[in-house]
Structure formats: structure tokens, C-alpha cells
């Protein structure tokens, strides 16, 4: 009952918003992005990191995996979320609008990655002693 009521009230709102946004330019591109969002996460990103994690667990037994899992996970998260700045995808637009150069993001990502692994190694050796 609660389930049907929730859908009865809010599903029309979601459908209205979808119909409305499809009425603007590039409707097919919006639809593509909405569908690709799910497909890329569920069938690319999640299986990839799961497979990498499984390979790591085979190489490092027990909870040892966490000393690699955590720094690698954080580093990859930063890479994915700041893909545009790190890979310079927005460089052309940014330089045009701001008048500034786009510099050093890739280097800083490498440094942050190195720092995360170094921190993890430090924690590992501190705990082992």
C-alpha cells in the first residue's frame, strides 16, 4: 500500500521532468547519458574494480589487501572525479574564459598517489612492530 502510494505521488513528477527535459535540445543525448550512467557504473566500473580487488586478494591474503586497497581506491577515486582537470579535458575552455594556463594537475595527482601509498606503508610497518 505504502509502496503504491509513494509511486502514485512521485512517479508522475519524475516522468513529467523527463518528458520536459526531452523537449529541449539534444533529447537523444540526455537519454544516452541517463542510460549510459547506469551501464557504465554497473557493467564497467564496478566489475573492473571488483576484478582488480579479487586479484589483489589472491596476491595478499587476509586483511593485508587493505594496505593496497585503500590508497589505490582513494587515488583512483580522485582520478575519476577530477578526470577533467587531471587529464586537461577542460583546458581549452578554461584558458579561454579565465585567461590562465592549466598546469600541474597530473603531477599533483601522482604526488598525492605516492603520498597515500607511503602513508599506508608507514601504517603497515608501525603496526607490524
Amino acid at each position, binding site marked *: 500500500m505504502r509502496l503504491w502510494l509513494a509511486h502514485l505521488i512521485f512517479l508522475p513528477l519524475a516522468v513529467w521532468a523527463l518528458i520536459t527535459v526531452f523537449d529541449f535540445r539534444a533529447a537523444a543525448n*540526455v537519454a544516452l547519458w541517463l542510460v549510459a550512467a547506469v551501464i557504465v557504473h554497473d557493467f564497467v566500473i564496478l566489475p573492473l574494480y571488483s576484478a582488480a580487488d579479487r586479484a589483489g586478494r589472491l596476491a595478499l591474503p587476509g586483511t593485508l589487501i587493505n594496505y593496497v586497497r585503500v590508497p589505490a581506491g582513494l587515488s583512483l577515486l*580522485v582520478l575519476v572525479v*577530477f578526470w577533467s582537470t587531471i587529464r586537461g579535458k577542460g583546458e581549452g575552455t578554461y584558458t579561454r574564459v579565465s585567461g590562465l594556463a592549466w598546469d600541474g594537475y597530473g603531477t599533483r595527482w601522482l604526488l598525492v598517489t605516492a603520498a597515500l601509498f607511503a602513508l599506508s606503508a608507514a601504517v603497515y610497518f608501525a603496526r607490524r612492530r
Partner: protein
Amino acid sequence: MRPPGPFREGFFRSPIRGPVLTGILGSILLVLTAIVALTGFLSHIAYMPDLPGNAIVPKDRDFPLTFDWPTSPSWLYALTQGLHTNVGLVVIPFVLAKLWSVFPRLFVWPPAKSPAQAIERLSIALLVSSTIFQLATGVANAQYWYPFKFNFVVAHYYGAIVFVAALAIHVIVKMPMVLRVYKDREWIKPIRQDLDEPTISRRGVIAFAGAGALTLLLGNVGQSIGGPLRKTALFAPRRDSGFPVNKTARQAGITPAMVGDDYQLVLRAGQRVTSLTREDLLALPQHTARLPIACVEGWSTTQEWTGVRLSDLRRRAGASEDATVLVQSLQEAGVLRRASLSADQLGADDAMLALKVNGEDLSLDHGYPARIIVPALPGVHNTKWVAQMDFNREART
């Protein structure tokens, strides 16, 4: 017949998945996404779409839920939009963790046992889709990357409505389960006994997501706070300049000739037209205030502005105190070359047509000869290179 692979029972081996982990992550996400959605809709309202020329989403396809955006405190928009963009980043690792925690549910067999389950799976598809869509488009936009053909503002706005509707359904349907997680600790036990030994605890997964959130936050928040902390934003686009330029004069098509000796600011109120040169403006009473300018993309900067109060210009133009104004730039093309201000914004004590910043003439990139600066106004509505101000009501004489 049950398909192979992930549809098989026992395919997913982690013992920490289950209602407890999902419920706790869901509770965290409910609070975080509420902040992001609320500040997002507040930003929509802060653009004052009811005033002429301000609406990006057409009024006839929008809700009439607007109010007069306040001008005090002056850092209001810096705060709301700083929260929107930074909490938006914080959400990402928790969304990833939550989707991981429920991933086996994607492969339940049969896909739906009842019509109720079928429609619930549909609304969950909408929720997941709109969540990733909102995060991906928001992140790309804040980093000046436009790998899409649609209008960002329009798609991000309606995407938010899809998200809020789908989230409301999800919360109503799942809330009893989440409450049971907090009451009934029996649920802490793994659901199945025959799974792998855990390599990380539930608390560990939540801490992992939290560490991800903190990393993203530290990589970006400096550009929202500004000042000396700006440089700490290692991955934010706006870390290189203490006084960022949103759009250069060159990009806007403003040439030195357009702002030379012939420059005149035109004020209109009904039939009355007043023209002022920059010298005329400098001869009027000057006002100085430290005000932040905050971009929809989440960065902000606070500077000391000097210029003519907008209320003085309104009086000089012969407009009434309840007039709104359409401010137009010298810029000949571009969607945000003009913006309307409300009567309250015109009347705010610190609202001014700035001629100087930090005691010196504005640079061409910062809007020379004159630009609008209004407390708590979304950055891009502080029109630069102001050419004309059309007040829509004459003062009664």
C-alpha cells in the same frame, strides 16, 4: 531457468553486504543528498528567474516556487553554492559504496515476482540513473568539460527533479527497513553463513568511503573558501588566481575601443534617459565595501569594491524605489550578458556599480569601466562592462 554467472546464488561472496551496511550508507546519503538538492534548488531561486531575462529554464515549464533572494549575509551564496559543489563531491564515494552494497540485488531471479516489485525496480533504476547523471554532469561542468550536447543548466535542473522524486519513493519504501536496522541488532549477523571470510568490516567500508569523501573535499574546498587556503585545493580548477576571472574581456568580445573615451553608461526609466561617462560616475558619491563574489561552480573570492551605490543611480535615473532593473553588458553575444536585479537588491546598502577594486581601477577582465556588485548575488549576475540599465518603473513626480 536461472541464467548463469551473477544470477547464480552464491556468486557474490562478500559477507558484509546486507541491510545493515546498506541502511547506514543510505542514512548518510539521505542527509548529504538533502543538502546538495536543497542548495541546488536555492541556487535556482537565487538567479531570480521571475525577473526579465533571468530564467534559463523557461517559466512556463517550471514550478512557481521562488522568493526574493536576500542580500544579507553577503556570503550567503558563497555558502550555499560552496555546500552544493563540495557536499556534491562528498556524496560520490558514499554512492559508490552503497551501489556496491546492493549490487547483487541487480541480478535477482526472477527479475520481478509481483507488479509492485516491478515498479519499484523501475523507480530504483530512475534513482540510480539520475544520481549518477547529476554527479557526472555537475562534476564535468565545474571542471569546464562539456562532453555532452545538452544545455547543462536545463538538464541538471530537470535531472534534479527526477532524482528528488525517485529518492522520495525510495525513502518511503525503504524507511521501515532502515529503522529496523537501527533497532534490531540481530541483523548485524551475515545473511548467509557460507560466504568468504571478510577482509574489511562494515565499519571499515564506511570509513573507506569517508576517507574518499575527505580526500575529494580537501582537493576542492580551498577554491570555495578562498584566501590562503585556495592553494590547498590541489585538483580544483580555480586554485591559480586569488582573484579569478570568470570570463576574460577577450572571450566576451570586449575591445579597448568599446571602453575608451566614448564610453557612456545609459540609464533608462520610462521616457527618461540619462547618460554618464566614467568621469561623471567617479564624481558621484563613492561607496566602499568588502564583498565576496561566488560562482555557481563553487569558487569564491572576497575583494574590496568601490563605486556608486545602485540606489543612487536609481534615484538619478528617475526610477521609483519598487523598480527592478535589467542590466546589460557591452558584450554583444553570450547567454549571460545581461541580468535583472530586484528592487531589494538595488536598495541594498552595499549594492553598487563598482569602478574600482582594492583601490585601483577595475582591470578590463574584471569589468572596466564599470561592473555590478551586489551582496549574495550569484557571481555571473554581477554583470561586467555595464552598458545600460533599464529601470522598469518611473518615479512618480
